């Protein structure tokens, strides 16, 4: 991490944590400091240590692991094993116990005190008495636990000064110490985002599966679920835990331009806070919702958008894919790593300055700058520029035998057949399946020999099993929808939620919610749209692939696969 990005990460963590700090105000009149820092500063510095392995001095933390292996804060951090929420993980057969605020100063007695899946709990042996600040400091620096036992060598021993230790412990005390907003003793409240422009059909496709899950599968089943637990819900040991809670879903309908959505979201949230956003659909970029969620540390699970924020560091929104950007990326990978372009070949990228065109072009350009050899020529198409046969003729004659990336919609591509007639016809033409909205028959036979299509979903005829399972579920719930793509995404959210809410139990912390998503297995039979969705800590785009296909001639416009699902 460079000094600049480090500073940036630090500032971000701090600004976020100020909010966290506000959730735990000190008693009126009482002014406390932590190692000479205000509480808010101490939380910032603690987060830097816990999440990024960086000491307040800006140096990486130093530790010993496995007895004699030097470990630094750049190699591994507390988050790696105990997760961002502090609730601990099971990985490689090693159980990292919870170290969050709510668990530190109470004993861990049995399996039910270990948050997470039944499998994770089953790996728990023994127990431990409550930590005190002193015994916690001893454990972190010497590996001797609160009962005087030697802890596993896999827990690193940290060399920390007294001040650093104080900050670390202060941070742990506040990490997942109180249940997140949107949770009451009886209820977990979620919201889903739509806009005034969302059609009734699209709203139904989004909401009917979510509501069917909430009402029929979860809320109606609560008495049984709680009875089965015998009142002993894995709860993080909080005495006020009430068992599994009812779910409620608000629909947040945004009006007006996207630049006003942020303040609308803030107002809706203030009116009635929610634990997380589920699904959601909006035309154009998802940025306003994304930024609202980052700022307020609210998870946003799998919204229906092809225009996500593409970021390596943002945390709170989990997307299906990078959308259009991923298609641009795929075209660049195909041209550089699968299909080696002959030297001297020109690559010309055409796009209108629309959200879609820009995202495709950016995806291609970002990747091409890293992998491509040939020069890339951008040819933006102005908003008032008409695309007629002459346009194609001029394009062909100024770039003969080039690779053309036509990030354009079907109306712009209507006369594309002209290109094949030109003496200077291009060698290859890339178009986007999402931009064509799957209408491949619109591509005239004349250019089909030249066309390659980025295809970010399952191919026609693939995934019949997943489809039959999803259809079966919808039929059973008596759901009929017109927008099957949105419904398929909503259905997938319900399948993941079913498992995740069960595994969360009473540990209703937003960071833990995301931690459990990250711990999810690959989904190959649940997604009607994608061949495979996969998850991992910090992985925020679940679908990792995109096919490149060509089209057979004739009325059927048969899709012919030209690449693997994942290109490197």
């Amino acid at each position, binding site marked *: 991490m460079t000094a600049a990005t480090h500073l940036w990460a630090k500032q971000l963590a701090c600004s976020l944590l100020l909010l966290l700090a506000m959730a735990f105000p000190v008693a009126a009149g009482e002014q406390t400091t932590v190692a000479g820092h205000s509480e808010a500063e101490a939380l910032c510095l603690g987060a830097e240590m816990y999440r990024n392995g960086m000491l307040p001095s800006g140096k990486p933390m130093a530790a010993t692991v496995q007895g004699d292996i030097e470990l630094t804060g750049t190699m591994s951090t507390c988050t790696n094993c105990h997760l961002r929420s502090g609730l601990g993980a099971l990985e*490689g057969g090693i159980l990292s116990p919870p170290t969050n605020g709510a668990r530190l100063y109470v004993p861990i007695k049995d399996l039910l005190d270990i948050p997470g899946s039944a499998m994770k709990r089953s790996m728990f042996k023994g127990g431990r008495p409550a930590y005190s600040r002193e015994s916690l400091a001893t454990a972190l620096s010497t590996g001797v636990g609160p009962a005087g036992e030697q802890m596993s060598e896999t827990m690193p021993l940290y060399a920390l000064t007294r001040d650093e230790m104080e900050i670390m412990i202060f941070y742990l005390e506040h990490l997942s110490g109180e249940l997140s907003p949107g949770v009451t003793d009886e209820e977990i409240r979620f919201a889903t985002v739509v806009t005034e422009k969302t059609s009734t059909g699209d709203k139904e496709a989004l909401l009917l599966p979510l509501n069917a899950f909430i009402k029929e599968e979860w809320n109606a089943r609560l008495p049984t679920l709680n009875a089965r637990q015998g009142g002993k819900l894995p709860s993080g040991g909080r005495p006020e835990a009430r068992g599994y809670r009812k779910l409620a879903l608000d629909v947040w309908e945004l009006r007006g331009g996207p630049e006003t959505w942020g303040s609308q979201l803030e107002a809706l949230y203030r009116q009635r806070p929610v634990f997380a956003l589920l699904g959601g659909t909006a035309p154009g970029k998802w940025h306003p919702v994304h930024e609202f969620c980052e700022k307020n540390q609210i998870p946003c699970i799998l919204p229906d958008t092809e225009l996500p924020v593409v970021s390596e560091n943002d945390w709170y929104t989990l997307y299906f894919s990078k959308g259009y950007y991923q298609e641009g990326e795929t075209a660049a990978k195909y041209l550089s790593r699968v299909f080696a372009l002959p030297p001297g070949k020109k690559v010309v990228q055409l796009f209108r300055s629309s959200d879609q065109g820009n995202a495709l072009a950016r995806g291609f350009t970002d990747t091409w700058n890293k992998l491509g050899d040939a020069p890339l020529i951008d040819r933006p198409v102005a908003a008032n520029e008409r695309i007629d046969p002459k346009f194609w003729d001029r394009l062909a004659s100024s770039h003969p035998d080039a690779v053309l990336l036509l990030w354009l919609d079907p109306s712009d591509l209507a006369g594309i057949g002209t290109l094949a007639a030109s003496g200077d016809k291009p060698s290859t033409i890339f178009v986007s399946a999402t931009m064509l909205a799957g209408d491949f028959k619109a591509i005239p036979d004349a250019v089909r020999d030249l066309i390659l299509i980025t295809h970010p979903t399952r191919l026609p005829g693939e995934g019949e099993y997943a489809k039959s399972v999803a259809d079966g579920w919808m039929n059973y719930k008596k759901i009929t929808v017109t927008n099957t793509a949105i419904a398929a995404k909503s259905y997938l959210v319900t399948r993941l939620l079913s498992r995740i809410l069960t595994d969360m139990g009473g540990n209703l912390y937003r960071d833990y919610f995301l931690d459990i998503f990250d711990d999810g297995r690959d989904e190959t039979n649940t997604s009607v749209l994608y061949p495979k969705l996969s998850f991992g800590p910090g992985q925020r785009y679940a679908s*990792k692939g995109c096919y490149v296909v060509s089209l057979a001639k004739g009325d059927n416009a048969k899709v012919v696969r030209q690449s693997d699902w994942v290109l490197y």
Partner: protein
Amino acid sequence: MKLAIAMICLLLYSSAGFAAVPTTAPSPNGVDSPARKSGKGFFGLEIAIAGNVLKPGSNAIDLTLRDRNGKGVEGARLSVVPWLPEKNHGVWEKAVVTERGGGKYHVENVVIAIAGRWDLRVSVSKEAQEDQAVFSFNVARKEPVSAAKAEKPKGNYKRSVHSYNIPNVTLLNQDGKKVNLRSLIDSGKPVIVDFIYTTCNTICPVLSASFANLRKELGKDAEQVQLISISIDPEHDRPEQMKKYLSRFSAGKGWDFLTGSREDIRRVLQALDATVEDKMAHEPIYLLRAPDSEEWVRTKGLMRKTDLLGELRSMDR
């Protein structure tokens, strides 16, 4: 690589097709010559097997093909199908044949599902000449963690000795360069392999920190040991991610992180007995091999640096 001739019984095969596999019981231990003529007498075939015997799992074999004059036959099309006559079925996996020149053919991914009597059905065609031969084997049960060679656990890890057939796959390293796994392993240096992924929680950072410590300990000799980390999350782990991951561990020359297609990675994991049902459920494993050796030391469990260094140095003997 040293190849030893195995316990083989070659049975002449009639031209009537595979349904009529001879029922003669195979000889127990390499009594017959491993070299025989094919059914119609067009070809002479000689078989050699890595590690002496066919074992449950993936095997590699070498076939030498000669014409009637004893001259090596090049450019023939070969297929090798493992067949369990007793149950009258084969295996899902397809054997992969690579021609090595001079009539030599190397066959990988010869998968044997269970212990018992197996036939290897070899079909050969060269221009108009088509012929077949069947080699029969008794495949013994898999030894429980190489009983003879299993050693007492050292520290907190388990140690055993194995032989593996490395599939001939080309993977991608952290620089986006294509790397042939077999060539990398056969680079003449001691090799240590582990299985990690860039967003792994608990064990990968410790495995990688151990590699980093080992390199530090070796100092200027660090490049004389080839470290290979193989991604078990190939869909996410692209060269860019892997490079970033390695930089956290100050990796340099002599440490390659490899990814590849799901299918290629699956073959590698299967061949090295490191298949994971799910990436979250993987185990801390190191595989160590001395240059030109056929033996791999396999350790399981997180180790101390001194233990790993000890294992490495014991390969120098």
